C-alpha cells in the first residue's frame, strides 16, 4: 500500500515520456552493477568469500565487494546481529546512498535463529531496517547466496513494474517506526550521525510515517552535527 503511494509520487514527478525510458535504463544498470559492502556481521559471512572468489565468482553477476558504506549498494547482514553490532549496522545502513538494499542471510535475521534465547542478539532484522531479500540457510551455501543476489537483481530491474526492490524508501517513509524500535533497544538518547529526516525532506522521500512520537523524542536529544576538520 505504502509502496504504491510512493510509486505514484515518483511517477507524478516524471511527465516526460522519455523519462521512463531513462528510468528503466538506470534501473537496468542498477540491477547489473551492485557493490556489496564487505561487513561480516555474523557467522554467515564465512560463505561470502567463497561466493566472491574463484569458485563461485560473484563478479560475473556484476557484484563486487566494496569496503566502505558510502560506496556500497548492498548491505549483507550475514546472520545474527548482536545489539552492539546492530548499532553499527544501522549506522552503516544510513551512511549508504540510496538506492540501497539489505539482504538478510541465515535464519537469525528472520526470527532470531539459533541465538533466539540470547540476550545479546537482535532477533528480527526488519524491525530495524527494511529488508529486500532473505536467504534461508544456516548458513546458506554460496550458491544460495548467488540465487538470492539474482533475485535481488530481478527485483531491482522490475522496480517500477513489480513495486519491489525499493524497500529502502520505507526507511524514510516509516522512519518513526524504525526509530522507535531502535530506541527501544538502545535507549531514548539514541542518535546516529545521519539526519534521516533532513535527508527525507531533501529528496522528497517523506511519508506519513516519517514523523511521529519517536522522532519527536529524537528531536529533543539530537545534537547538531558539526562538520569535522581533519588535520594531519
Amino acid at each position, binding site marked *: 500500500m505504502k509502496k504504491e503511494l510512493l510509486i505514484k509520487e515518483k511517477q507524478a514527478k516524471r511527465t516526460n515520456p522519455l523519462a521512463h525510458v531513462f528510468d528503466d535504463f538506470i534501473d537496468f544498470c542498477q540491477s547489473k552493477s551492485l557493490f556489496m559492502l564487505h561487513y561480516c556481521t555474523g557467522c554467515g559471512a564465512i560463505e561470502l568469500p567463497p561466493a566472491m572468489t574463484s569458485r563461485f565468482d560473484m563478479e560475473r553477476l556484476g557484484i563486487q565487494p566494496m569496503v566502505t558504506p558510502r560506496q556500497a549498494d548492498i548491505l549483507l547482514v550475514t546472520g545474527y546481529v548482536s545489539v552492539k553490532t546492530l548499532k553499527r549496522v544501522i549506522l552503516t545502513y544510513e551512511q549508504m546512498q540510496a538506492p540501497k538494499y539489505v539482504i538478510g542471510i541465515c535464519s537469525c535475521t528472520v526470527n532470531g535463529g539459533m541465538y533466539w534465547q540470547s540476550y545479546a542478539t537482535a532477533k528480527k532484522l526488519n524491525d530495524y531496517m527494511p529488508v529486500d531479500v532473505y536467504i534461508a540457510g544456516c548458513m546458506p*551455501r554460496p550458491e544460495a547466496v548467488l540465487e538470492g543476489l539474482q533475485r535481488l537483481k530481478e527485483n531491482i530491474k522490475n522496480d517500477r513494474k513489480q513495486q519491489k526492490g525499493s524497500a529502502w524508501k520505507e526507511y524514510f517513509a516509516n522512519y518513526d517506526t524504525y526509530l522507535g524500535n531502535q530506541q527501544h533497544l538502545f535507549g531514548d538518547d539514541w542518535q546516529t550521525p545521519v539526519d534521516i529526516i533532513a535527508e527525507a525532506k531533501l529528496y522528497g522521500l517523506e511519508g506519513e510515517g516519517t514523523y511521529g512520537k519517536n522522532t519527536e523524542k529524537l528531536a529533543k536529544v539530537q545534537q547538531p552535527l558539526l562538520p569535522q576538520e581533519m588535520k594531519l
Partner: protein
Amino acid sequence: MKKINYNDKGSILNPLKNLQFFARKPITEKLEPRPASASYRGFHINDMDKCIGCSSCQKICDNAAITMVEIPSIKEDAAKGIRNLRPAIDYGRCCWCALCVDICPTSAIELSREYVHVCDGDETDSYFVLPQENGIHGLNFEKGWTKTEDSDLLDRKRRPMGEMEPEERIDNFNEIVDGFTLQMAVEEASRCVDCGLCEDACPAHMHAPNYIRSIYEGNLEQAVEWMYETNPFSHVCGRVCTHICEDACSLGRADKDGNKSSQPIAIRWLKRFAMDGVSKTKIKQIAKKGMARKKSGKSIAIIGAGPAGLTTAFDLVKKGHKVTVYEALPKAGGMTRYGIPNYRLPEDRLDQDIEVIQSVGVEIKYNVRVGIDISMKQLEKDNDAVVVAIGLQNGRSTRVAGSDNKAVVKAVDLLRMIPKGDKFEVPKSAVVIGGGNVAMDIARSLARLQKQQFKKVNVTVSALEALGTTFLADDEEVKESLEEGIVILDSRGPRECVIDKTGKLESLHTVKVESIFDEQGRFAPKYDESDSQFHPCDMVVEAIGQMSDVPILGDELTEELEWNRGRMQVDENGATSVNWLWSAGDMVKGPDVINAVADGHRVANDIDKYLK
C-alpha cells in the same frame, strides 16, 4: 615438500611464473546451484503417513524452531498411537543440525538435498514451512540426511526382563517375572521420548510419561503419586495390564524397512517397579492426597468390589462422599482376584491395592449378595446413587454338541476355584478352547496343577485365530505357554465335544478355520470341514468370553432399564436410563482391568456432578 627457510629472500620473478594462468581454465562453477552431497542437510521433508505426531522433534530442537500443527484431515487413532499433529519448521530458527531426523522414532522426518530458498523482504511467511514428502517448494529433491543405525539417537532395545526358567516355574504359582532392578528401570525409563502417546492410548489416561520420568529421576514416590492420580489399581496394572500404552508407544514402530526391531518402553514393568519400590504406608499417604476436606453428606452404594467398583468408590470417597461397596464373595478384587492366576498377579499385591483403597475410607461389605441379602430397592432408598459394577462372572459357552457335559467347564469358573482353594479334580489332559489371555491363564494354571500332581503337562489350546497374526493373547503369554509345554493349535474351530457312551468326555473334535470374519468384518468363521482332528482329553475348558449375571437387579428394575444385546444400555459416562443408577466396568465395557478403572473414573465423575 619444498622447504622454505626463514632467511630466503624470495625472488621478484617467481610470482611472474603465474602468468601461466592466462593459459589455464577458470575453475568457476556454473551459475546454477550444484546438486548437494548424498547426506546433505538441506530443507526438511516429512512423510506424513509415517509421522505420528509424537513431537520428539520439537523437544530435541535446540532452537525452538518446531511448532506442532494440528491437521484435522489426518485421522487420529489413540490405540495405534497416531496423532494429527505434524511438525512445522520455522526456518527463521532452524540450524539444520538434523537432530530432529536422528531422534524421530518413526524416521518420518528427514532432510532433503534442497538448499535454496530465497524470498522477498515481505514474504517471511515462506519461512514457516509444513514439510511434506515433496519438500519446501514441491520440487521433489532427493533425500539428503536420513537416519542411519549409527546416527539414531534412540535406544531401540528394551532392557530384558528376567523371568523364571520354565522348569523352575511350571510346578508352582509363584510370580514368573523378576521385575526390574533399579539400574535397569532407570535405563529403561531413560529410553522414553516423552511423547505421551501412551497416555492418550491408555483408557484411564495414566500419566505414563510423567511417572516414567520420575522413575528416571529415581523419585519413585513421585512416580506413584502420578499413578494414583489416575489409577488406584497400580499394583494390578503393573502386572497384568493389557498395556495398550505399549502398543501405542512411539518407540515400538516398525523401522524404514518394516522390521519391528524397535521395542516399546516396558511401561507396565516400570509401573510395577515403582509400586514395588514404595512402602505401603507411603502409598497410603499418597493415595490420600487430594482428599476433599468437607464431607458432602451424600452416600453411594456400589455393587461389586472389582476394579471398576472400587475405582468408583475410591474417587467418590476422595470427593467427600460416603461409599459402601457390596461384595458377594469373601474377598474384594473381583476378576483380578478370581480370574487371574497367582503366577501373574500375586495375591498380596492385589491385597495391597485394596488395602490402600480401603485406607482412604471405602467401606466394603463382604459376602453380601445383592438381590438376595439386600435388595436393589433397599439400596436405592438408603443411598443417593447406586453403581452396578458386577463384571462378567459367567462364562460363555461354545454350545457345540456335548458342551453340556460336566467335564466341559468354563474358564472363569475354574479360575475362580483355584485361588479360592476349592478342590477340583485336575484332569490328566485338557483342551482349552479360546485364544485370548484368559485361555492362556487357564491353560497355564492347569499345566501347573498337572505338573504338581502328575509331573507332566498335557494341555492343548485350540484357538480360531492364527498364531503370529491374528492371535488374541499377548505374544509373551504365548511364548511362555509354549515354554511351559502347552500345545497351541491355532486356526482350529471346535465342532463337537465327543462324549462316549458312559457320558465321559472322550475328545474334542476340531476343524480347520479358513477365515474368521466375513467381508463386513462380522464374526462368521468359515471352516474347512475336510481337515478335522480329535484331541483326546479329560476336560474341555471353554475360554471364549464371559457374560454378566444380571438377574441380581430384580425384575422390576430390569424392566425399567434399557438393554442392548444383553448389555445394559449406558451413556458414555456410565449412566443408565434410570437416573440414580450407574453401571461400570466389564459388564458394560468389556474385560480389561484398565478399562474398568477408566470406567470407574468416568462414573465417579458423573455421579459427583449429578450429586452436586
